[in-house]
């Protein structure tokens, strides 16, 4: 059974149709990359999955359980939202670390507040995560003392601390210069090697090619083409061809 099924997601902002019916499934341990030009609806799709936006139509099904149904004419309650969001983790384009907390506190804050174990367990898990993203020597530093790449690695550790089933990345390297991009991609690659289920919205074509099992190309609110990474070498649709040529 697929860990995630997305069926017929549509989303309008006012009169603008941002998502015009998105369907895809994701298997456990699979890495899915979503590519496409700006404004094609990639970020909105991720935000719908994470319940930051609400689709107007369509269903989101996690492990066979319908967590969101656009046909049901009511917003999920606050408690339902919080439960739904815990299936997913989200790493933002601009990190959104909590500036007033140290690296360690950023990672432990949510598990502590949601009582995901004893203080010692939470801290030792957090330490392991921080070490796994290569920032063991920075645990007591504050976000303002870190480079962009380091901040994004902390953000990844923070998302992992809640043990999400599906980790989403919203253009995780777009705010970084090329030098720092590499260190973040390396962390994502290592997660892929550990078979973390991930959805990565990215503009890094060669990275998408290397790391993902499947690639979705979105254009103007629809999935224009999808398949194995080979579609990047041999695009079938004209739109994907012209998109790839722009790199």
């Amino acid at each position, binding site marked *: 059974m697929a860990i995630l099924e997305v069926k017929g997601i549509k989303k309008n902002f006012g009169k603008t149709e941002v998502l015009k019916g998105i369907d895809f499934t994701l298997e456990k341990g699979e890495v899915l990359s979503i590519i496409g030009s700006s404004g094609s609806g990639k970020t909105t799709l991720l935000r719908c999955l994470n319940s930051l936006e609400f689709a107007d139509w369509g269903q989101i099904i996690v492990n066979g359980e319908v967590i969101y149904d656009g046909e049901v004419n009511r917003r999920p309650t606050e408690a339902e939202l919080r439960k739904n969001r815990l299936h*997913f*983790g989200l790493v933002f384009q601009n990190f959104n670390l*909590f*500036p*007033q907390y140290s690296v360690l506190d950023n990672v432990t804050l949510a598990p502590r*507040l*949601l009582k995901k174990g004893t203080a010692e367990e939470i801290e030792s898990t957090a330490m392991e995560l921080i070490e796994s993203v290569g920032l063991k020597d920075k645990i007591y530093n504050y976000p303002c003392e870190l480079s962009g790449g380091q901040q994004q690695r902390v953000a990844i550790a923070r998302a992992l601390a809640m043990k999400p089933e599906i980790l989403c990345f919203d253009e995780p390297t777009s705010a970084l210069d090329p030098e720092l991009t590499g260190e973040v991609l390396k962390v994502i690659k290592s997660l892929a090697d550990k078979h973390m289920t991930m959805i990565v919205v990215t503009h890094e074509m060669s990275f998408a090619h290397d790391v993902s099992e499947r690639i979705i190309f979105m254009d103007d609110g629809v999935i224009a083409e999808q398949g194995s990474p080979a579609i990047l070498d041999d695009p079938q649709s004209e739109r994907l061809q012209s998109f790839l040529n722009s790199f």
Partner: protein
Amino acid sequence: MKKKVIIGVVSAAVIAVLGVFSFIVYFLPYDFSQTEASTAACDEYTAQASSDGSGEVILAEYESKNKESKGFQLNAKEDKSSPNGAFFMWMIDGSYDILGGNINNKVIRIAPKSDLKIMALFNDGSNAALANFKIVFSSLNEGFVQTLYLFAVTLLGAIPLGLIISFGSMSRFKPLSYFVRVIVWIVRGSPLMLQLLIIFYMPGMLFGPENNIWGGEESGRFAAAAVAFIINYACYFSEIFRGGIQGVPVGQHEAGQVLGLSKSQIFFKVTLMQMIKRIVPPMSNEIITLVKDTSLARIIAMQELIWAGQAFMKSSHGIHGIIWPLFATGIYYLAFSGILTLLFGWVEKKLSYFKV
């Protein structure tokens, strides 16, 4: 960094000057030995300077028995050791001032039925300036206490009210938010002095003196001033709070959401601290302005610091026509705002470990 050092040095200097003044006033060896005289039951009252030399105080209480205004005479035996002693005298109820000079044959006029408490301070002249000092500063201290009191009450009232107003102006219910914004515009757009005058005088002027909710007492003046200050400062604070709340990037809220935090957890654990850091500099500005704005309460004759200092230009506590108490009031304001500047500098430093 250099700026902070300068502020620190200047504040320290001002505090030191005030300290020296206090020292002169309170700690120089000056003997105000006090003698209590009996209460007079008739219109003529003889105050006796006791014979033990200079530096004497005559404290007398007099209750008028007559309905009509009567002359009231003070006589004092001359003391040989201080024949031309300077004489300061004031009444506790503040209704009369008595000229300084020789105590003999002073005539005081009092209102019918009024109770009168007379304090006379008699000294031999050599310490006249010092006695002046003591009188002026005790009067200024009283004014400063009122100033401080108004300052504290304004802060205590305006901060919560400002929060409520800021929520009102951010309300998604448009009529409420427009209404609140118009109120804020009116209050911020008109002079505080005008608001003070209207709030204090309007009830009595419109509904007659008997319906004047403030009454004619000092406590009523203070209450009116406090209401005006709280409303005015709440509106300024509300805009600062609004800026602080809206200034926290929406991404911070969303980061809390995707981690599964509740709304209150996000507010208290994520955004609150960032708001506080954002509002400290503008709040310190407003609060230091408030220190000085309390003097506007002078316009409705609230007996605050400026009122106390200005009174000596004409006549107060038996002292006439001196300007220096006004400068002294300036020192109080400087010292107080200096201390606040240091305090807020410290808070900002405490919060400088993170950037927003």
